């Protein structure tokens, strides 16, 4: 998912160079090879959507009526809608409130709080659910879903909003104050509109995660489209009902995208005019300090404390016995292997499009970006279902191999790599490449020595984020993993669905440990990205 797609799109001034077009050879839109490659990759990324559309088309109206317009789907619709409509606003409020407290007030220990508020991302949602179900066995229904989702996903709003707040130009607020607005009015009429972009992006991310989430809800007997699709898959492999549910889910996702792009609006958010930007001033809290600290403490306890406590509790209950067995090592190695292979592959695949977007913006690039935007919203289960069906019927050679699983990961996580790569490539403007060429280096040599070199740190950051995503990925892995493959997530799932919570605990711990450095990286990256 694109963590900073919305924030940087507007904040980075697009036309530093008035210059257009490519060098001597190549089309206006960029070097031919790169354009073709990007188109191929974009077409590949449309496979899941294409699959759903084709399946729906083939099904015929009668089947669609029978399988889509039935009470069960109504239930799922209600559940899913309720989940999204309740969780997202709460996440937005929590995210903005937390970000504001941490970035713009004189909160004690705000540096520590900043990290703590981002940390819940290191805990996969299904581990969170596992902990909460251990604590409250009867947890379930919409409210159970809302609770666990909110606690797992509010950082997705917090992080971009905090990044924007930390870099927001105080001159805007000062202008507001000088026009007679009081502090609360300044917040609502000057600060909040600036956050619209980041908050909308975060809200979209949360919604898409909610739609795609399986493990967390399956563990607490809460049915959404994704859990129902997976149930259908378990019963019919890839029967018509599963595909129909998938098409409704996809429709949802596309509507969300539409909503987000409308909310984003077209206004400028960066400072107009020259002059250096001063650092934002922090508001003194006075006696609001204590409630503020309590609020953040409560949030952290719920989002971090509860899961960690229960994981540790089950670890202790399980004792040494759960740590033996080569299964753990095997799963760990496979997770690492897939994580690294997936991260590398995804970064490589994202490169052509990132290059085109930064160096050769134009109509073709816009279309490709749009395609990427749409395909990035597909839930894991739809991607997996599509790949399974397509490979089993059309490309049996790769069916059930690591190649398909890595391909699924690439499809799911390309946006993360893309966003980072774009930011990195923006750091390596065309002028540097040209300067290198004027100094006698052939174009390819200049590209490697200058552009690649300069964008490498950002690329590595993107790869790390993809790694994070892969470690925590469950649904696609369950469907696509080759025989004998186990990952930390699938093993965790196998144990916890048998209610062997103790057996699942070591896997949960390992997943959290692997995710922590990446989460920190994400947090650090977002701060830098907003400053582009």
């Amino acid at each position, binding site marked *: 998912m694109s963590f900073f797609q919305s924030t940087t799109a507007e904040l980075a001034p697009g036309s530093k160079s008035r210059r257009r*077009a490519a060098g001597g*050879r190549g089309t206006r839109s960029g070097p031919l090879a790169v354009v073709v490659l990007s188109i191929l990759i974009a077409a590949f990324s449309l496979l899941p959507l294409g699959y759903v559309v084709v399946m729906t088309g083939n099904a015929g109206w009668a089947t669609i009526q029978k399988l889509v317009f039935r009470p069960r789907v109504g239930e799922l619709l209600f559940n899913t809608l309720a989940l999204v409509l309740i969780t997202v606003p709460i996440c937005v409020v929590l995210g903005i409130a937390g970000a504001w407290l941490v970035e713009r007030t004189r909160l004690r220990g705000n540096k520590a709080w900043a990290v703590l508020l981002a940390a819940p991302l290191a805990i996969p949602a299904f581990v969170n659910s596992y902990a909460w179900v251990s604590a409250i066995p009867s947890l379930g229904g919409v409210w159970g879903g809302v609770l666990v989702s909110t606690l797992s996903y509010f950082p997705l709003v917090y992080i971009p909003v905090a990044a924007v707040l930390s870099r927001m130009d105080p001159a805007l607020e000062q202008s507001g104050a000088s026009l007679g607005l009081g502090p609360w009015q300044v917040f609502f009429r000057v600060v909040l509109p600036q956050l619209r972009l980041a908050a909308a992006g975060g809200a979209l991310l949360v919604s898409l995660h909610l739609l795609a989430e399986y493990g967390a809800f399956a563990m607490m007997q809460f049915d959404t489209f994704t859990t129902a699709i997976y149930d259908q898959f378990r019963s019919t492999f890839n029967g018509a009902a599963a595909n129909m549910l998938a098409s409704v889910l996809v429709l949802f996702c596309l509507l969300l995208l539409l909503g987000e792009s409308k909310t984003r609006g077209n206004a400028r958010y960066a400072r107009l005019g020259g002059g250096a930007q001063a650092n934002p001033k922090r508001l003194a809290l006075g006696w609001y300090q204590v409630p503020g600290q309590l609020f953040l403490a409560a949030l952290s306890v719920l989002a971090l404390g509860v899961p960690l406590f229960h994981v540790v509790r089950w670890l202790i209950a399980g004792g040494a016995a759960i740590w033996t067995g080569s299964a753990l090592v095997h799963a760990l190695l496979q997770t690492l292997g897939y994580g690294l292979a997936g991260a590398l592959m995804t970064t490589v695949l994202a490169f052509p499009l990132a290059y085109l977007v930064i160096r050769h913006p134009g109509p073709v690039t816009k279309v490709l970006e749009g395609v990427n935007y749409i395909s990035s919203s597909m839930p894991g289960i739809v991607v997996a279902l599509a790949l399974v069906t397509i490979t089993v019927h059309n490309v049996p050679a790769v069916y059930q191999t690591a190649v398909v699983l890595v391909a699924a990961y690439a499809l799911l996580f390309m946006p993360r790599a893309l966003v980072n790569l774009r930011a990195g490539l923006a750091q390596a403007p065309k002028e540097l490449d040209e300067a290198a*060429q*004027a100094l006698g280096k052939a174009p390819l040599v200049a590209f490697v020595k*200058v552009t690649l070199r*300069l964008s490498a740190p950002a690329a590595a950051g993107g790869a790390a984020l993809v790694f994070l995503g892969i470690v925590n990925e469950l649904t696609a892995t369950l469907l696509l993993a080759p025989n004998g493959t186990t990952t930390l997530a699938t093993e965790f799932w196998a144990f916890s669905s048998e209610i062997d919570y103790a057996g699942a605990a070591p896997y949960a711990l390992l997943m959290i440990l692997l995710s922590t450095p990446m989460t920190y990286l994400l947090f650090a990256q977002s701060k830098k990205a907003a400053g582009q």
Partner: protein
Amino acid sequence: MTPTIRRAAKAPTAKPAFIPDPGHVTDHLLVSGARKSFGGTEVLKGVDLTVAQGRTTAIVGASGSGKTTLLRLIAGFEAADAGTISLAGVEVAGPAAWVPAHKRSVGYVAQDGALFPHLSVGQNIEFGLPVRGRAAAARVGELLEMVSMDPSYARRRPSQLSGGQQQRVALARALARRPQLMLLDEPFSALDAGLRVATRRTVSQTLSDAGVTTILVTHDQAEALSFADQVAVMRDGKLAQIGSPFVVYTRPSDRATAEFLGDAVILEAWMEGSLALCSLGGIPVRRPPVQGRVHLMLRPEQIRITEGGSIRGRVVDTDYFGPETTVRIQLAPIAVDPGKPVDPHQPVGGEVINIRHWNAMLARPGTELSLKVVGEGVVFPWSE
């Protein structure tokens, strides 16, 4: 912040520090009929330009006039749609030939220097050098001295340098390969005013000492006039005029060029022979292109305040700039003999013109003055 520039110890006429490699032919640049369009808009509409060896040319024009595009064509970063470019007699771009940028032996200094942020100053300068090690280090020191910087700067990072220093390092980097031609793309526009002048002087000195053929692109006409041997004025994709700074300034080929290169006082006038009759009297014009009603152009510094002259005016207001003041004067209406019939070909007076004067006290608003004109004027055909 005053830049720390080491003053060149040698006199301007000393032996050039940069001795062209004997095997290296430093001939001239020839651009012929260059055309370039971007997405349907024609940016260059047929440009012809010649630059002699060792000379500096400034291409000056407003933003969007196409000057940067022309530079990029010469550098090889873009390909022209039509026309040819030859360097030292070798055709490098044209229907039959294409030499890519990295093979053209053209040095390029971009608007913001474009120093590689991941390399040190020394590594930046060495970037294009084929040698490494001690030979390269020696050359780096030599080049830094050439741009009046201390060789110890080689170890610093570009981010630790000021804007002016970065530009000079960019110049040193480009010079390292002893290019046939140096291209400077508005290299001083990103610098603060005080830094700009000093850096400009250093760069100009370095390039003339080195004897390198140079093309500078700028939108600042003062920069173009002071820096170059030859000024090419670009407007709307074509070169409106090419000539020495003195010529293009004092004898611009058309009104737009005249107004672009400096303040111009344009008056309605009628030609009679080689005299232009206007509200400031009869002004001699060398080789007038037309007769009859014309625009007469004078530079503000040609109009002086005098005692007891026949041309009178009244100060409307002044703008004080410190060393000089711009004085806006309304010329007195020219007396019309009531008895005679009104001659439509007579100047009527009453225009408001700008002149410059060093003494603000003399020109307070409301003051009545008399004026005289020094030197020749330039006329352009009349247009509404």
